[in-house]
């Protein structure tokens, strides 16, 4: 069946900010879909609140709405745009839920808009566990025994039905939010409560546990002619009980006989037909009993998912792109396979390598969080690796993770403790399993402890056994074929990485590159999608074009997310315009950069010195770009340069001049710029002396960190001592930096581009939250909304002077702090920053593209970017946090970054833009009701104006004692309420009763006692979805926004309209 001619305009729903369970895989799928639809001449309307996505670049859609993903806004956009259809299956659970919400309001019916991909009934059937159960039973599939709960009182009945341990799964949540496993009755009651709160429809499925069963996933596609194909099978290394997003997974499935695999395949085909996914991809999860092969269906997602992104990268079959084409009427046999060109997409990919995905966790950021893994996803990112054997693939994956591990690193842990830790899956279980074998446990015992399939364990055991052979003149080729890194071999054989590399080169032990081709080499591959392995034949076939390698960002983690992938992709786009061949290196399967369609050539490889050097040796590029991928490639700049690799853009020496404390201080002195008093301490004693000289509070942190890792504000020497004892180990090699903390300063971020001769400001962003909150966690406004003009001018001047003095070629980010009339330089990073996508969208100039071209030798003048763009509208960025995934973790912000993603609000004034950003971040500011106020002493005068505004707008105030007294002095009425430690009814009770519309609650950063008392109140607000503000400046911005909201309706605006203004 050819394309449907009646679909001329389609609205695509994106997935919004990056959160745990929903990351940049949906930018990958959405971008593919946008391109695929545009190719067919369809007008695409896009809604997505996340500015750091490629899909929201104005050229990827006809109409781009960076607007909150809420039903009201979508309804407004549908009214304006009147598309023929809505495609909701490429934006994750967020898009499905949103489509469901507008459909239920009758909007689609009223406007005559069709839902394509998956219909309402299919979405409901797949998501509503009760309906799904019934449907599965109809087609003869077993599902775990379960019991449906809508109120806490049904706990006993549920337990009787399923027994312990029991799985708790709330309906309609993503990434398993609110889900858990209960081993005792007590745990069960608590978890059930939590689950009921998390479900938007207050429904929880209590399920029989299939802990210890093997877990498999099938990626399925169906077209309108009812052709069904399986794209990929995936086997989880971890047994059932660990969320698949947190599991180490392997493709294809390894431990199934053909009889068993075909049974799953038949089931998958029946399931996609029964659920009725009309066209597109679905992900189906199965549990298989390891002892008798019994199969139960765990769940089905009627949309593309994280697993389908993985499956696309693992096989070379672009699921999202094909799904988009199927949605507009094509059938699989009408779509060509891009890689082979001659064969159609109606086949099942076969692969001749092993793919391993390993999740990346961020527990170090949330010390109070439970680090055990369960049914709710906790990882923040992942890596994928490709090897010819599982052993090679696994070891490549380990060194891709960027946790300073280059294989199975040894752990120093007593044996009994090791056994204990193995019993419950944790983020670091691979290293634990490796250590278990090193300590002499056998595969049978490790299997008993972990329930991991013996097939995987035997391979790990073989790798550990091999370690003993790696001494002296060991068999290098054999070790490399097993996937050992040079670093790990050096550690095992007591030499250096350089010596191992030199020996390899001497002996000709170098990797070859093989192609990912969907077909196991049966047909010729025209797409250079490559991975390294130690084999005979190399298929890289490098060209002799002028080419540039761009190093990607590696796994997502807090502090390094999709923003850097955005920059890498734009780097490619920019260089392509100048006629370069572009070569991407990255190991993050969620990204747009690892779509083989993005760059001319893709190397899916770990971002380590060894792996990058091998690619450089094969490709012999004109240069390598390290400044787009964040900290990951930046760490490689100096070693690559030492190895003779040409680095494009700002020189590694200039980078060092900006990062080295002393050299940087000299630079500022030379330019006459201010810096907060600071120093470097190499011992505890030195830190004490330094802090006393500077004066408390001080900001302390280890040198060379990203995302404010282990950064703290300490108010006195006791706190400093505790920090030095618990948070860092200071030594001459690992100094600690001590800075004066600028209280109540306004922080400002600037992104600029410099070509060495001229520097142009990209954007100046004034932070909403005061200095002391990590810049990645702070909301900000472009242009500045409160700074006087002369201060902004001073910031401009300082930025330009620093860029020219450093000799920056490419992007630069500067953080300033403004206290009264003084501008302080906090830090300079001569590289792409987290804010580049936001700024690019706000000013309508793709900064990273311009920067890439500058790095390759063009001048700014040449490129026509010579003056700062001053937009007529206001753009506000807000951060999005993962607190809801970590029960018991406080929601307060501080100098350590905790956000996983961001949203953007754009409108004609600050208040409206801020309101949109808040709404997009899930905080729908109220226009009436009661405000609960409890602020620390210093904030009281600063918050007065905001509270007056709220009272004028008709809000009632409820305040704790001190705050209420202060308000009374200022003639503002407020009802008193107890703090939590003063007894019920207190602040938390009020929230839980639903009596509060907005919470304003501030405590001093670093004041642990005050924070502890108010933590449960903030948690309650978070859990019940009551908007809360934890800073005075945030409260002021919110009050301004509320005033605008009450003054008139906020309307969505398309980017295309802004930029032509």
């Amino acid at each position, binding site marked *: 069946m050819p394309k449907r001619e009646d679909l001329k305009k389609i609205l695509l729903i994106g997935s919004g900010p990056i959160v745990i369970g929903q990351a940049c895989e949906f930018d990958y799928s959405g971008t593919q879909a946008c391109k695929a639809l545009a190719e067919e001449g369809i007008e695409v309307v896009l809604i997505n609140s996340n500015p750091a996505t490629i899909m929201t670049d104005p050229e990827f859609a006809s109409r781009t709405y960076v607007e909150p993903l809420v039903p009201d806004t979508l309804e407004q956009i549908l009214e304006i745009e009147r598309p023929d259809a809505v495609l909701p299956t490429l934006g994750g659970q967020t898009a499905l839920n949103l489509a469901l919400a507008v459909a239920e309001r009758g909007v689609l019916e009223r406007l005559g808009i069709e839902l394509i991909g998956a219909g309402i009934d299919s979405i409901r059937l797949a998501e509503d566990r009760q309906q799904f159960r019934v449907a599965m039973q109809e087609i*003869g599939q077993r599902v775990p025994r379960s019991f449906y709960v809508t109120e806490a009182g049904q706990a006993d009945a549920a337990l009787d039905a399923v027994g312990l341990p029991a799985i708790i799964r709330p309906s309609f949540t993503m990434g398993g939010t609110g889900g858990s496993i209960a081993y005792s009755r007590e745990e069960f009651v608590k978890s059930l409560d939590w689950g009921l709160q998390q479900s938007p429809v207050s429904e929880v499925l209590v399920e029989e546990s299939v802990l210890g069963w093997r877990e498999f996933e099938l990626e399925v596609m169906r077209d309108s*002619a*009812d*052709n069904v*194909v*399986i794209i990929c*099978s995936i086997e989880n290394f971890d047994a059932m009980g660990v969320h698949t997003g947190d599991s180490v997974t392997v493709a*294809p*499935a*390894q*431990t*199934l*006989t*053909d*009889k*068993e*695999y*075909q*049974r799953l*395949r*038949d089931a998958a085909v*029946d399931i996609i037909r029964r659920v009725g996914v009309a066209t597109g991809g679905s992900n189906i999860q199965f549990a298989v009993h*390891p*002892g*008798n*092969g019994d199969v139960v269906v765990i769940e089905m997602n009627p949309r593309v998912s994280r697993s389908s992104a993985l499956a696309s990268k693992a096989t070379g079959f672009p699921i999202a792109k094909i799904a988009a084409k199927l949605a507009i009427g094509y*059938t*699989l*046999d009408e779509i060509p396979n891009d890689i082979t060109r*001659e*064969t*159609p997409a*109606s*086949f*099942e*990919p*076969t*692969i*001749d*390598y*092993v793919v391993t995905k390993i999740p990346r966790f961020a527990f170090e950021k949330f010390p109070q969080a439970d680090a055990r893994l369960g049914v709710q996803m906790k990882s923040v990112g992942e890596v994928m690796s490709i090897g*010819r*054997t*599982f052993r090679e693939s696994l070891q490549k994956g380990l060194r891709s993770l960027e946790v300073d591990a280059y294989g199975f690193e040894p752990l120093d842990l007593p044996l009994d403790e090791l056994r204990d830790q193995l019993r419950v899956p944790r983020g670091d279980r691979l290293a634990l399993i490796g250590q278990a074998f090193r300590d002499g446990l056998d595969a049978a015992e490790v299997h008993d402890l972990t329930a991991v*399939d*013996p*097939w995987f364990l*035997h391979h790990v055991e073989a790798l550990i056994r091999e370690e003993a052979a790696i001494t002296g003149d060991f068999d290098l080729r054999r070790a490399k074929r097993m996937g050992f890194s040079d670093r790990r071999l050096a550690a095992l054989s007591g030499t250096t990485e350089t010596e191992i590399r030199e020996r390899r080169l001497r002996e000709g032990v170098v990797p070859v590159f*093989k192609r990912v081709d969907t*077909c*196991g*080499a*049966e*047909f*010729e591959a025209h797409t250079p999608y490559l991975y390294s392995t130690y*084999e*005979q*034949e190399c*298929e890289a076939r490098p060209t002799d074009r002028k080419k540039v390698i761009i190093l990607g960002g590696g796994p997502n983690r807090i502090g390094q997310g999709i923003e850097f992938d955005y920059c890498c992709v734009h780097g490619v786009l920019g260089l392509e315009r100048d006629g370069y061949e572009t070569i991407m290196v990255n190991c993050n399967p969620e990204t747009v950069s690892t779509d083989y369609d993005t760059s001319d050539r893709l190397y899916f490889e770990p971002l380590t010195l060894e792996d990058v050097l091998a690619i450089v040796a094969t490709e012999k590029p004109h240069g390598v770009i390290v400044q787009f991928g964040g900290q990951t490639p930046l760490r490689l700049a100096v070693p690559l340069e030492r190895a003779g690799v040409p680095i494009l853009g700002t020189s590694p020496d200039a980078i060092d001049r900006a990062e080295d404390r002393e050299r940087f201080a000299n630079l500022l002195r030379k330019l006459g710029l201010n810096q907060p008093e600071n120093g470097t301490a190499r011992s505890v004693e030195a830190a004490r002396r330094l802090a006393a000289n500077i004066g408390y509070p001080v900001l302390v942190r280890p040198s060379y960190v990203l995302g404010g890792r282990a950064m703290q504000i300490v108010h006195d020497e006791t706190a400093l001592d505790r920090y030095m004892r618990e948070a860092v180990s200071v030594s001459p090699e690992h100094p600690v930096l001590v800075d004066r903390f600028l209280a109540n300063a306004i922080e400002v971020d600037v992104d600029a581009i410099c070509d060495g001769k001229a520097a142009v400001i990209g954007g100046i962003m004034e932070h909403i939250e005061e200095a002391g909150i990590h810049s990645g966690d702070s909301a900000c406004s472009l242009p500045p909304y409160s700074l006087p003009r002369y201060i902004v001018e001073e910031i401009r001047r300082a930025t330009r002077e620093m860029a020219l003095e450093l000799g920056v070629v490419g992007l630069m980010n500067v953080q300033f702090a403004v206290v009264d009339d003084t501008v302080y330089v906090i830090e300079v990073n001569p590289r792409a920053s987290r804010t580049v996508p936001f700024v690019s969208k706000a000013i309508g100039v793709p900064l990273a593209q311009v920067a890439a071209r500058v790095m390759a030798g063009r001048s700014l003048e040449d490129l026509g970017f010579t003056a700062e763009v001053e937009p007529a509208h206001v753009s506000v960025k807000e951060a999005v946090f993962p607190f809801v995934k970590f029960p018991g973790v406080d929601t307060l912000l501080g100098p350590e970054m905790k956000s996983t993603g961001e949203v953007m609000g754009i409108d004609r004034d600050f208040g409206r833009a801020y309101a949109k950003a808040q709404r997009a971040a899930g905080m729908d500011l109220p226009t009436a009701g009661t405000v609960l106020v409890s602020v620390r002493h210093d904030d009281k005068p600063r918050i007065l104006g905001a509270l007056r505004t709220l009272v004028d707008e008709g809000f009632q105030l409820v305040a704790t004692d001190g705050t209420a007294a202060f308000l009374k002095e200022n003639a503002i009425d407020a009802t008193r309420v107890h703090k939590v430690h003063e007894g019920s009814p207190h602040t938390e009770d009020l929230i839980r009763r639903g009596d509060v519309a907005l919470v304003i609650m501030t405590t001093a950063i670093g004041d642990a006692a005050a924070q502890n008392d108010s933590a449960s109140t903030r948690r309650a607000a978070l859990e019940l979805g009551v908007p809360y503000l934890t800073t005075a400046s945030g409260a002021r911005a919110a009050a301004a926004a509320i005033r605008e909201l009450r003054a008139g309706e906020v309307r969505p605006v398309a980017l295309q309209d802004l930029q032509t203004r």
Partner: protein
Amino acid sequence: MLADGSVWEGESFGADAEQGGEVVFNTAMTGYQEILTDPSYAGQIVCMTYPEIGNVGVNPEDEESSGLYLRGFVVRDHVDFPSSWRSRESLHAYLVRHGVPGVSGIDTRALVRRIREAGAQGGFIAHGGAPVERLRERAAALPSMEGQNLVDEVTTAEAYEWREGDAWLPRSGGASSRRYRVVAYDFGIKRNILRRLTESGFDVTVVPARTSAEDVLALEPDGVFLSNGPGDPSAVPWAVETVRALVGRKPIFGICLGHQILGLALGGTRTKLRFGHHGANQPAHERDTGRVMIASENHGFALDAEALAARDDLEVTHVNLNDGCVEGLRHRELPVFSVQFHPEASPGPHDTSYLFDHFHSLIEADRAEA
């Protein structure tokens, strides 16, 4: 060692034997035991494109015949610690027991690319140290598959009755309760064909390949089945003759070599493919419905499309979408049809298993007419 003189060094596993055969590759990611025991691989060395082989060991249930007829088995990584509740023996022990040599550790992808470019060719498995020139000669001296009759090596000596169904088949309930008698020619038949026939309502008598048409008709079957098997269909002219004698007398269903033999009996010609189709992911386009079935295929020869197109009484029912190869055939008037792919799967997807039921309904209609 390939006939083109290239040497591929690896480690040996399985039986300690030196032997040669035509080297082909198979792209299925599961089901190596079914492949090993498929008599259609007689005379061939099979290279698996999926690198980790041996993962699930072997078990008696997954055997497609009572023996191993292939000449050698080549894998990238031979796994000797099987993990499956069904496993009874390791792959290594199984190959030893059946006298088949294995090679692991070679760059199988490079080997596959070589075969893809240069076409299927002879290869010889030998221990290291053997003189290269002599090996090359032996590899080059291997007889071509063209003109080779391998059917006599693999067919049953005696006729027998088959009763066993397929415990792994999802119960479709589509099969009619009425049972018919079918005689199945064993050109190298896979057990799963017999299981599927049984499931679809047939009582099956398996007969040796050289059983005459008269002897078969004497058994008074409701239909005749022509099985898969190894080698070149034109090397078994006697089988073609027998089938020609049966066409028009009984409803006929053929698979793989059986399909080619039927095609030749109906006046078609056969061509040799460069490296054949061996895998479980081939797109078979069904012309009647426009649907695409994912099929298991294993053939080095095929019926020539042009020769069939010239015949008014024949109709091509399926084609392979990758290269347009003929994958299915039927007679326009007679209840006679055949497919090149394997509806019995094993290994492979079950998309086309309905064809056994289709055979059942053809016979039902034929009986009703009679």
